[in-house]
Structures are given as structure tokens and as C-alpha cells.
């Protein structure tokens, strides 16, 4: 937002991504403008195929836009090459995938320390930080477990810890609870809530309204474009009792 003291954590203008040509031209993302303030949690919801995953990949530098500009922090990333994008992913952006994408031959702590090692930190420092983060996500007792020995919710928590290892400006989550059951979803929700409390900026793409309801802002997306926006910081029209039909 222009005029505020701290720059937006994420800003995109006129973003679009298209595939194919002529008659087969498809715009997966069609003219998106987005601004996320630091410390905000933004949820992007929409039916499958609406382009929300593509949008997230663009924002995280995992894919190149066909047009438009993206800034992370103060830095424009839309014209960076793969090398520059890799640097952004090392230091500024943490990504959480629906399929977790953990290395199944590495233990939880080895998985979490990997981005730090890739960024060139010493193995000792990386290990220390990884253990810290696993503790923070509540998996201190599962540090040496292989992913195959962890439940879905635990695996996603490892993935979230991994996304945090570089202390990124921005965490992007693509359907983080897509592969999880209700109880595991609650685990992840709690974690996101805690992250929000500590001031982490989060952008979550989901079709699960439970996740969306924890955000500050909820943006609806259809056919590649934003269609509405809801701010969820206000109180409800009734007390909790109304939820079960108790008149207050």
C-alpha cells in the first residue's frame, strides 16, 4: 500500500500466464493484481482449474509469467533468470507443497536442514536451526524419523519447518491440507495460526474453506482472475452459542 512505512511483502500487477497459441490459447492466470502487507495471512480460494496453483507458482518464482510484474520485498523478480529466482527461493520465499515433496531417504531433520545447506550454511548451523524449527512445529521427538514413518500431518509439518529454515520474508503454501484428513488439517491450522501470531507473512492457496477462514483476507478466484475479496478480521454477527442454535 503506498504511503505505509514498511513495503509490501508481496506485490503483483497485471500478472498473467498463458499457454498455447491462437485458437488453443488458454490464460491460466488473467490479469491479477495483488498486494500483501507484511504479517498478513491471505487465502486464495477457488474451484479446481481456476489457476490458483499457477498463480502461486508465479509468485514464488517457480514459473515464469507471460506478462506483468512481481515484487518480493523491494525486489522485482519478474525479469530474473533461473539463477536469480533460485537465490530468491533460498532467502526470501519458503514453499509448502500439497504433495510435501520431502526426500524419502532423508530423516525429518535432514530434510529440514537441506535448504540451509543449499544456501551454503555450515552443516552444524543448519542442523541446529533445523532442530529448533522441528521443535517449534511440535516434532522434537521425531527428529530422526524417515518420512515413511510419519503421518500425513506430521510430514506436512516437516515441510512447513523446511520452508521456514531460511527465515523467509514470505511463505507460500499450495493446498497444504489437500492430502490430509480432518485431524491432520487441524494440526496444520494450528501451526499456521502460530506463524501468523509471530508475524510471518503467509499466502495460502486452498479450496478448503476451513483454511481460508483463518486468514486475514480471503480472495476468491475464478477462471484465472480475482472475483471477490473478504476481510475476516471483524467479529461475527452473533456469539458462539448461535452456532448451535442457542439464542444468546
Amino acid at each position: 500500500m503506498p504511503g505505509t512505512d514498511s513495503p509490501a511483502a508481496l506485490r503483483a500487477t497485471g500478472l498473467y500466464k498463458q499457454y498455447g497459441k491462437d485458437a488453443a490459447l488458454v490464460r491460466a492466470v488473467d490479469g491479477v493484481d495483488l498486494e500483501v502487507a507484511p504479517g498478513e495471512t491471505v487465502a486464495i480460494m477457488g474451484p479446481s482449474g481456476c489457476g490458483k496453483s499457477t498463480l502461486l507458482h508465479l509468485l514464488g518464482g517457480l514459473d515464469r509469467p507471460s506478462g506483468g510484474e512481481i515484487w518480493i520485498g523491494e525486489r522485482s523478480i519478474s525479469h530474473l533468470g533461473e539463477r536469480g529466482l533460485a537465490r530468491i527461493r533460498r532467502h526470501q520465499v519458503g514453499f509448502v507443497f500439497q504433495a510435501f515433496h520431502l526426500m524419502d531417504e532423508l530423516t525429518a531433520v535432514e530434510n529440514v536442514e537441506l535448504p540451509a545447506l543449499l544456501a551454503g550454511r555450515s552443516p552444524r548451523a543448519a542442523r541446529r536451526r533445523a532442530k529448533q524449527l522441528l521443535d517449534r512445529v511440535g516434532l522434537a521427538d521425531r527428529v530422526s524419523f524417515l518420512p515413511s514413518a510419519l503421518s500425513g500431518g506430521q510430514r506436512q509439518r516437516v515441510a512447513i519447518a523446511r520452508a521456514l529454515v531460511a527465515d523467509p520474508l514470505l511463505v507460500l503454501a499450495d493446498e497444504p491440507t489437500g492430502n490430509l484428513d480432518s485431524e491432520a488439517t487441524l494440526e496444520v491450522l494450528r501451526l499456521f495460526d502460530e506463524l501468523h501470531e509471530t508475524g510471518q507473512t503467509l499466502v495460502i492457496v486452498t479450496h478448503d474453506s476451513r483454511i481460508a477462514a483463518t486468514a486475514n483476507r480471503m480472495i476468491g478466484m475464478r477462471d484465472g482472475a480475482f472475483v471477490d475479496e473478504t476481510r475476516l478480521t471483524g467479529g461475527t454477527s452473533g456469539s458462539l452459542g448461535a452456532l448451535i442454535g442457542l439464542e444468546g
Partner: protein
Amino acid sequence: MGKVLLVARLVARDLRHHPTQAVLLLVAITAGASTLSVALALHGVVSQPYAATRAATAGPDVVAAMQMQRTGGPPAQLTALKHAPGVTGSSGPFLLAFPTALEAGGNSDPVIAEGRDTTMAGVDQPKVVAGGWVRPGGVVVERSLADLLDLKVGEWVQLGASNDYGSGGGQIAMQRFQVTGIAVTAAIQPSPISNFMHPSGFAEPGLVWVTQSAAAQFANAEGGPFAYTLNLKLANPAAAPAFATAHQSGPLSLVSWQSISVKEGLIISIEQAVLLTGSSLLGLLALASVALLVGSRMEEQTRRVGLLKAAGAPPSVVAWILLAEQLVLAVVGAAIGLAIGWLVAPLLTNPGASLVGVPGAPTLDLPTVGIVIAAAIAVAGLATLVPAIRASRVSTVRALADSPTPPRRRWLSTKVSAWLPVPLLIGMRLASRRKRRALLSAASIAITVGALIALLMFRQHSQAVTSMGGLYRFSGPGDPLWDRGMQVMLVFTVALVVLALVNAILVTWATVQDARHTSAVERALGASPDQVGLALVAAQLLSALPGAILGIPVGIVLYVAVGRHNSTVPSVPSVVAVLLLTLIVVALLTAVPARIGARRPVAEVLQAETA
């Protein structure tokens, strides 16, 4: 019947769905089959040239010759042999005039001129491979001499008597003759005559055929030694050596076909040697690389096995489906390879004429076709069998998850790699993740390097041997046959290198493909494309280096087995050069697909993997 159709349909569908895989495999099998068929065609023909020539020319069992000091008709002692006990047929006596000077292309060489009738003889009728037989004014040149002097049918040469005994002398009464034909013969003159040393170091002088009258002219002109030769056919060819010893006396000398055969066997032209060795090496390399490729492809079929089993196919049907696909590719590849071999084999021999020393072009006879197809099927079948059995035993669930081996903690490599710079970190973990793939790469490279080193040793050995004389018929550079031999060696080297390259490309490409998902995740976590590219090269080299080093003993073994020579040690600088070159090529071949892949946006790759 329904099952067969189903299998056929599934196979066709899979081949259509993964065309690149199928095409690569087909290329490998075709390359293997074509080299194998060329190898077999040449090998069979080259290894027994004498027997083939003998059969084609109605070669004699005994050759008798008698030197004459003065002019006159055929000696009675020689002619009497025609009626000796045990003789069933003969041709001659024919006049041998030597040395006769043959002048062509500015050079003059002494040759033996044999006088023949224009009609066909019953025993030892030289087989014409180009042009026609003798006629007045014409000369038919023996095959190897024609090669040496680069003579073609229709050319004009000069023939005349000569008194050149190697000490330098003059030519007398040269006349123009036209080369009417080129022929091969199984008859070689007995010792005193064949000991006539050609100034250029021939073990035997060259042979030409002219009309009886022309030969008489040469013989009479100089008044020097000449001879009559008689070809005999015996009732019992095995008794030829005894016959020869029995009738040997004084100026009459005889030689049996067995001795000639041994001599011919000893005298291997450099070209023949190259063809033998080269074809064997190529054949071996082809077989090995196809086997490795097919074996490694089986790894990727595990998920398909899972899907089939989940759909209810019993293990036998699953195995059949896997086998059927490989067999289809094997048979098609073998057929294409045979066609290529049929086209290429004649090119490797004397253009326009037939193989050295043997009449007739190397055709792909039925046994060769049978062997190639059988080899392709056998390789495909064997390489499929073990993995197919293993795959169909794996539990369906594991197969669907596409991890044929459960992920194991790679304790040491994980710990060690953490301390290495990023590209080596990623590379080492990649290599240890796919141990079987790494082993296959190493084996492939070992065999490739081995073949190259064997070839290198052969070149070394053949160059070193020229000074030994005896074993090789022709001396060295400058000799057209030597040059052609080296040309053929070059062709084989190129073929070997091409096959080695195809092998290397397949190996490196497979490594990069394999590592796609892992490298995409690493990139998503912040590894830069350069780091990932270097990592892939490092991972490939980690398996290529031990493979290349292993190739040295492999090469020595191959050379001993194939080259039929005593073992020698290859020269150190050349070995080092081969090793370095191989590693550099492997690194480059990995770097290219790695770099291309590393430029793709991460999201594309990840989505393709989870799709």
C-alpha cells in the same frame, strides 16, 4: 485368443504413450544388430578365405613345378605325374615365365606370368572376380597384385621379359597388354619358385595370367630361368602331403594343399586382421550395450507392473506383457539392423569387387540372419526375464508407489555430503539414491572404454609388427593394401566410437531423467541451475570414473580374446588419453541435458512428476 489381443493392445498403447523411450531402445537395438550383422558377415568370410577360394576355383590338391634352365617343352618327369597312382585329374603343364616385368603407373615390378588356355581348365581354374579370362593381347591379374598396383579392368600395362633378379636390371621388349580381368586362385607355387623375393619384400611374387604364346615369348626372350607347373587332383586329398614327399626329387618340387593352407593361414593381410578384430569388438560392444540398456529400462516398468496387477492381471500375464514389448522392439530392431548390415558390409571391402582373397560379396546368409535375430531376442529376453520376474513378485502396493526398493537410510553418504560444496552435496546424494542405475552406468562405460582400449592396442600392435615381417604380408605405410587396411581400421574405429557415443548418450540421458524429480525439489528449495547441472555431472562422473578405470583390464582381456595375439600392455599415455577423453565426453554429454533441464521452470517439472 482374447488374452493375446489384450497383450498386443497394451503393448501398442504403451509404445505409443512413451515414444521417446521406445525409439531410443530401438536405436540401440538397431545399432547393435547392424554392427553384429556386419561383424558376422565379415567374420565368417574373412576367417576362412582359403577354403572358400579352393572350393570356388576347383583348387588343386598338389601343385608340382619344375625349373628349367633352357628352352624346351614341358619335362617328361613333370608330365609323368599326370598318370601317377592316386591322381584323378590334372591341368597343365603351364609355362611360368619369371621374372616378367610388369610396368604400370610408372613403376615396374617383377611378376610371374603363367601361360593359360583361353578355355577353362578342370583343375585350378582361377575364378574371375572382374572382367573376363585371358585372350590374346590381354592379361589377367591376380587379385592381391591388382590391389597392390591399383589396377582396374580395361587399363593398359606393359609386360615384358626382365632380367631383374632384385639386383637391378633392365626390361626387354615391353609390350602393351590390356588388363582383361582380375582373378583369385588357390594354387601357390612350391618353394623354390615362390621364394623368389620381390624387392619390396613380398613373401611371394605377384601372379598374372597371359596366353600360352605370350608366356613363351617372355620365357624365350631373356633366356633366364623359367618353369613349368602342373596342378593335380588326387583321389584322396588327405594323402596330398604324402604324395608330395614321395615324388619330390631334384628340380621337381611339389607342395600339398594343406601346406598352402597353413601358409595362407599365417599370411593374414592387415585388412583381414582389422576386419576380424574390429568386427568382434563391435559385436561384443553392441551386445553388451543393448543388454545394459534393456536391463535399465526394466527399472522404469515397475509402476506399470503395479497398475497391471492392480487391474487383476496374474503375474504370468504381467511377465508376458513386459516380454512382448521387448520382443517387438528386438525383432524390429534386428530387422532394421540386418538391412543396414546388408547395405554396409560390402562397402567395407574392396569396392566394385569382392572381399580380399575370396570371391563373392559377403552376403547375409540364413545362418547370419538367424544369429542376429536370435541374439537380439535372446538379449531382450534375458534382460527382461530377471527384472520381469522380480517386478511381478513385488507387492502391488509397493509397485504402484514406484519405489521398487524402499528408501534406505544412506547414512554415510548423507553425513559426508553435508560437508561438501553444494554441487557435490547434491551430486553425491543423487548417485547414492540410485545405486543400481549407477552400477549400470559404470558397467556400460567399462565396456565402452574396454573396447576402445582393445582397438588402441590393436593399432599399436599392428604398427609395431611391421618390422617383424613374416606375419604380415604387406609391409607398411605407402603400400596401398596397408593403406586400405588402415582405412578399414579407421572405419571400424569410427563405428566403434559412434556406438560408444550412442551408449554414452543413453547412459547420461537416463541419469538426468532419473534425477528429474529430485533436482526439481532441490531447485525449489533454492539450488541454482548451475549447481544442479554440476551436481548431475558429478553424479555421473562418480559412477563413470570407476567404470572407466575398470575398462582397462576389460580392454586387455578383450584384446587377448579377440585379437588372437599374445598379451601386450597398452602404452600408458594412450590409456590415459582414452580415460580422460571418455570422462570429458561423459561430462559434456551429461552437462547438456542437465543444463537444458535446469532452465525449465521448476513448477513444470514438479507437476509432470506428480501427474
